[in-house]
């Protein structure tokens, strides 16, 4: 059962992410990305990391993808993306090489056979409980720092995206026509 689930999820995830990477349409790409992320949370559940899976669902699928969706309202995302993609040979050479190399590294026999758990999963606790125990004891300071980071990111996002929010984008385009030429 587990094997079946793993292969199912894996194939689906790989396929969906390939769509994300290859698709010319942003909406397709985003949708397949979101779907892939949902399936990754499935992998987490398989691994027994229930809490991580839930967080994955909430943060990635819920928040991040929603953010992208909202962000895309600013861009002209309905049509296909016109771009000069890097030549396929380069892409597949580099991508393939990296895949081979990484697989070789991960597939190699693990060097540290006698790895000891630094924070072993507590006996008898459910996963969320265990996570809570470790997160609020050993990882309290990183957790707080992460909280501050998120706050900073929020403020930054608001300020960056919120600038000149009251002005119409189409009109701004005309204004920026001159500078656009400069860029080119």
């Amino acid at each position: 059962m587990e094997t079946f689930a793993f292969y199912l999820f894996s194939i689906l995830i790989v396929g969906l992410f390939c769509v994300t990477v290859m698709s010319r349409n942003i909406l397709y790409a985003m949708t397949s990305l979101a779907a892939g992320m949902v399936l990754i949370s499935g992998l987490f559940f398989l691994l027994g990391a229930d809490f991580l899976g839930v967080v994955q669902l909430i943060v990635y699928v819920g928040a991040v993808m929603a953010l992208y969706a909202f962000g895309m309202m600013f861009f002209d995302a309905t049509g296909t993306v016109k771009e000069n993609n890097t030549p396929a040979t380069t892409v597949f050479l580099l991508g393939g090489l990296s895949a081979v190399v990484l697989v070789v590294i991960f597939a190699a026999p693990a060097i540290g056979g006698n790895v000891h758990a630094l924070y072993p999963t507590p006996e008898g606790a459910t996963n969320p409980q265990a996570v809570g125990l470790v997160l609020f004891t050993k990882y309290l300071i990183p957790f707080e720092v992460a909280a501050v980071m998120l706050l900073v990111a929020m403020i930054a996002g608001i300020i960056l995206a919120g600038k000149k929010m009251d002005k119409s984008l189409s009109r701004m385009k005309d204004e920026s026509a001159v500078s656009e030429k400069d860029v080119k």
Partner: protein
Amino acid sequence: MESLVYTALFAPLVGSLFAALFGMKPKSLWTGTVTSLLLFVSFVASVLLLQHVMEVGPVHVTLMDWIVAGDMRIPFGFNVDQVTAVMMAVVTLVSTVVHVYSNGYMEHDKGFNRFFSYLSAFVFSMLVLVMSDNFLGLFIGWEGVGVCSWLLIGFWYHKEDVTRDVNPSISPSWAANEAFIMNRIADLGMLVGIFLIYWNVGSLQYDEVFAAVPQMSHTLLVAIGIFLFIGAMGKSAQFPLHTWLADAMEGPTPVSALIHAATMVTAGVYLVIRAHPLYSSIPEVGYFIALLGTFVAIFAASMALVNRDLKRIIAYSTLSQLGYMFAAAGLGAYWVALFHLAAHAFFKALLFLGAGNVMHAMHDELDIFKMGGLKKVMRWTYIYMGVASLALCGIWPLAGFYSKDTILEVAFNEHTYGIWFVLWLTAGLTAFYSFRLVFLTFWSDERYKKYGFHPHEVQKYVLWAMAPLGILAVVFGWWKEEFMEFVTQLLPAYEVSEHTHHMVPILIVVTSAIAIGGIVVAYVLYHKRLRRNPKIEASLPYRVLSNQYYIPILYEKAISKPYAELADIAWKEIDMQVVDATVDGIAKLVEESGDETRKMQTGNLSDYLKWMAAGAIILAVLAIVAVVKS
């Protein structure tokens, strides 16, 4: 007593630094005055020290630790014993006189302040040289006087180079470099000697080194003795490193008087005297020193016979007298060498200062053939130079008589009759060329009128400043016994055998006879007018002598030219073709590779990401390789 030592040592340094502050400024009288006063202070301190050493004994002070590295400990120590006290008194006395004299002599020179700065720096270095209690301190002073000598010979560095026919020394800067480089060659020998000492004794303190002399092997002692003497040969301009001394006359005359007659050039003699425990135990090296000294004595005297240049004649006579000193030191009569050193310092400085007066009067003309009859206008200079020349010739009762006669007695006593004979002959030559100079300058017909000179006597105070030297040139020899008693507290006494003792009156008569004979010949030849015999002047021996045995030309042809060509090859073939080409090649490689890789910098983020991915993959591959290999 300690404060006296420091006063004597550092007063000239203070003066030098003070004058250096105004080095670039136009002349200000007080730099000369202040440095002269400080020198006088140093002189007084030296005399007090001399008295103290006489009554109480040597003074030893340690200023501070200089080099402490592992087992090596070299302090800045100063030792004032009998020899040092004598040297200090001589050096500071002559220096003081020369400083005062220079106030007048350099009066119109643009570099007045600079001159005094150098001159005082020289005195400081010289004092370090004689006062140091170890070989390294001696070496510091040794190099210090070398640098000051270089600065002062090249004092008029702006003069253009001319050919050897016009001026045998080519130019002041050329002469300065020659002196410096010759001394470098010799100093290498000295350094090797010092290294040998340190290597084998483990200390450079005089007392420890000399205490270790009896334990050292004979070969080693000979090696050390020879290497140290090579250093002494350079500084004291012994053959074959002698050419620089005559060329050093390009410097201002007070410099010639102080550095190239009275003090610095005697440093070599001082070194041999200082290292007497070493040289006493290697008599064969001593004998070689004596032979070389004797050779230089007659060699230099022969060149002086025909020279026409006022200062060069005196320079050759200095060389000749240094030869006497080495002869004495080499034969083991160290105190005699020191005695002649001191006496020589007085009368030779006096002679040079007199020559300076003449030069001043003759507007820097040095050719004695263009002078004559100057005694009428320069009475006092004439008297001074006459006295100095008499002292140099060794006429009773002047200083030179006592010192030189003693050297001849030593040579006789050692049964080295060859040395005695040559030195005796040299005494006659000395008398001849000294008085040839005196007669051609001050007597005979007034040839200068033909050349339109208007000579005049120098300032009064300058003449007064020379007085102490004049007096000492006369009376110094009278203290021979006291001097001997004093310095033989440190130096080995020299015993004259019974036989020699009986011979002394005869020796004196014989020596005085040849000296007087030389004077008489000079008188007959030159007292009325300048006699020139074109036949003699065209003859080979005359030309050989007047061209300094063609040695400078030989050096130039045999050493300088090939060396320059070698350097040229090294420059054009090795440096340009190999070293520079390599460096240029690397620069070119970097530049071109930069130029090529510049194309990577497209400004497009996507390209950068590609490079980054490629780099990451390479790193990962390397990691795999490393793991697999291990």
